[in-house]
């Protein structure tokens, strides 16, 4: 085929996880569907790339919601895979070894067994355990499918049950870091989703990273007859009398379709569709600098045993609270997420442990600063802040000394910034979690134009796929 057809039933903007999942559902039920992707490859915010002979994942620390279908009731990932007609085994998810959240005065461990976290809380915060159990019950029973647009704060709810500021910060840090587009707080529905995804269900990862997940999805989509067009950016969404009629591509080509699902984010979707779409345009303030250090041995041999470590060096006991916000400095060195893809219990059948190791470190970053540097300054600043972040983590005793005594074990490094994220996914500000406003019902001011993915309010790999499936189902029924 030389190019896209001139007409489809549904067009999907973006070959990220939400777009691919939506495409599978629609193609399975015989819709003529095309995914249009501006970039040269699939995956969006969770893609992979080749650098100096090694493959790296853009994002993947952990696939959340690790709850295999042998456990009933089914978790969201198992339900999602049913909808995609993909078996649990195809993603080859190995369970994590165990993660931690660390702050001055306490650390809590959490694994894929919720009792572990609960007993850590009981041991370290005996006077808070009843509140903790009530918070768990509230998070488990929250209506996460409530589609109203108003922001529902979590802080007050949590504070009414957890009265110790240190425990409050310990429980909030992983939740905010893994999915809040809002500084200092998180919408209660999102809090509940993440509580289940991180603490109740836990983490898994395919031995070979996100690639097998993306390949499985793409293969399935294409086998069902779906079209996928890379290097086909959408410039405008065309409408007539309040109804979507199609798109115009970057090269001016027009494609017609009565339905369009956009995973491009609210500001870009608004820019493509014009005022008639009636969408909020805040890009979202929060972004990150993330670094990858390739090691000549597994990270555990350098003393790093956690799957993921969420940390903050501020001391809530002294009133210095964990800070989740856009920093004034280029990077916030007082907190971070460390992670080693080595620390999963990989199956021998999938190849067992890797020979080389990997350590990833993510810190909050100031998007404006990174967006406006001269190229040579940009390169220098990346190296400087990457080293400073690793040093801060080492000084806080959560990371090995990979810039000093153990530096000889580092084979390669790569660093990316908010600017990198914008360049490869189009999201302004490098806003990984999108706009603070979410359109939970996916509806816009235009008939036929639907928002999917991050800005529908469903984040992360599993969330993005669920979002695509739920909106596709609405079109199908």
């Amino acid at each position, binding site marked *: 085929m030389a190019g896209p057809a001139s007409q489809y039933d549904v067009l999907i903007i973006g070959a990220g996880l939400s777009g691919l999942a939506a495409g599978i559902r629609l193609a399975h039920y*015989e819709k003529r569907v095309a995914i249009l992707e501006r970039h040269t490859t699939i995956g969006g915010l969770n893609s992979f790339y080749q650098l100096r002979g090694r493959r790296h994942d853009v994002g993947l620390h952990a696939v959340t919601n690790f709850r295999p*279908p042998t456990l009933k*009731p089914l978790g969201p990932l*198992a*339900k999602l895979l*049913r909808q995609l*007609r993909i078996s649990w085994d195809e993603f080859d998810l190995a369970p994590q070894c165990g993660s931690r959240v660390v702050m001055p005065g306490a650390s809590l461990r959490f694994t894929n067994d919720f009792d572990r976290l609960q007993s850590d809380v009981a041991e370290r915060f005996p006077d808070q355990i009843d509140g903790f159990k009530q918070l768990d019950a509230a998070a488990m029973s929250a209506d996460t499918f409530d589609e109203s647009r108003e922001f529902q704060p979590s802080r007050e709810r949590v504070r009414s049950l957890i009265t110790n500021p240190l425990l409050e910060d310990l429980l909030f840090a992983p939740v905010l870091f893994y999915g809040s587009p809002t500084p200092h707080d998180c919408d209660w529905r999102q809090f509940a989703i993440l509580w289940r995804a991180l603490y109740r269900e836990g983490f898994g990862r395919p031995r070979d990273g996100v690639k097998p997940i993306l390949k499985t999805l793409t293969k399935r989509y294409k086998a069902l007859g779906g079209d996928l067009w890379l290097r086909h950016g959408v410039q405008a969404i065309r409408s007539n009398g309040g109804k979507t009629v199609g798109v115009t591509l970057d090269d001016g080509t027009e494609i017609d379709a009565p339905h369009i699902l956009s995973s491009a984010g609210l500001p870009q979707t608004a820019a493509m569709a014009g005022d008639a779409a009636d969408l909020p345009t805040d890009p979202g303030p929060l972004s990150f600098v993330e670094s990858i250090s390739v090691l000549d041995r597994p990270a555990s041999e350098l003393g790093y045993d956690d799957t993921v470590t969420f940390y903050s060096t501020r001391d809530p006991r002294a009133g210095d609270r964990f800070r989740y916000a856009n920093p004034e400095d280029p990077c916030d060195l007082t907190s971070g997420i460390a992670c080693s893809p080595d620390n999963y219990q990989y199956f021998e059948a999938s190849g067992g442990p890797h020979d080389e190791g990997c350590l990833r470190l993510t810190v909050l970053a100031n998007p404006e600063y990174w967006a406006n540097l001269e190229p040579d300054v940009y390169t220098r600043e990346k190296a400087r802040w990457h080293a400073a972040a690793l040093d801060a983590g080492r000084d806080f005793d959560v990371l090995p000394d990979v810039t000093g005594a153990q530096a000889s074990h580092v084979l390669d490094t790569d660093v990316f910034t908010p600017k990198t994220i914008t360049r490869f996914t189009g999201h302004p500000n490098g806003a990984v979690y999108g706009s603070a406003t979410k359109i939970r019902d996916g509806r816009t001011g235009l008939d036929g134009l639907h928002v999917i993915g991050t800005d529908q309010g469903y984040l992360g790999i599993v969330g993005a796929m669920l979002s695509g499936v739920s909106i596709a189902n609405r079109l199908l029924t």
Partner: protein
Amino acid sequence: MTRPEIRGVILDILENIAPDEDLTDLNDSDPFREQMELDSMDFLDIVMELRKRYRVQIPEEDYPNLNTMNGTVDYLEPKLADTPV
């Protein structure tokens, strides 16, 4: 299609939708939902698979007929009488 053939089709759809469920001891007169985990999305999938495979349209008000295997076969029998497997 005969009744046993329709039953076979439904089993095939259930297996396709919920490969993680063991259907060997399925009791035809008890509700599906009491014997396996089937949420509303899965239930809609049964309806959509029937539409895709055999072009049967099932209006929403008829959904309660599909709660058990026997009910489903009763309901589909006239609709699929002239449809080959």
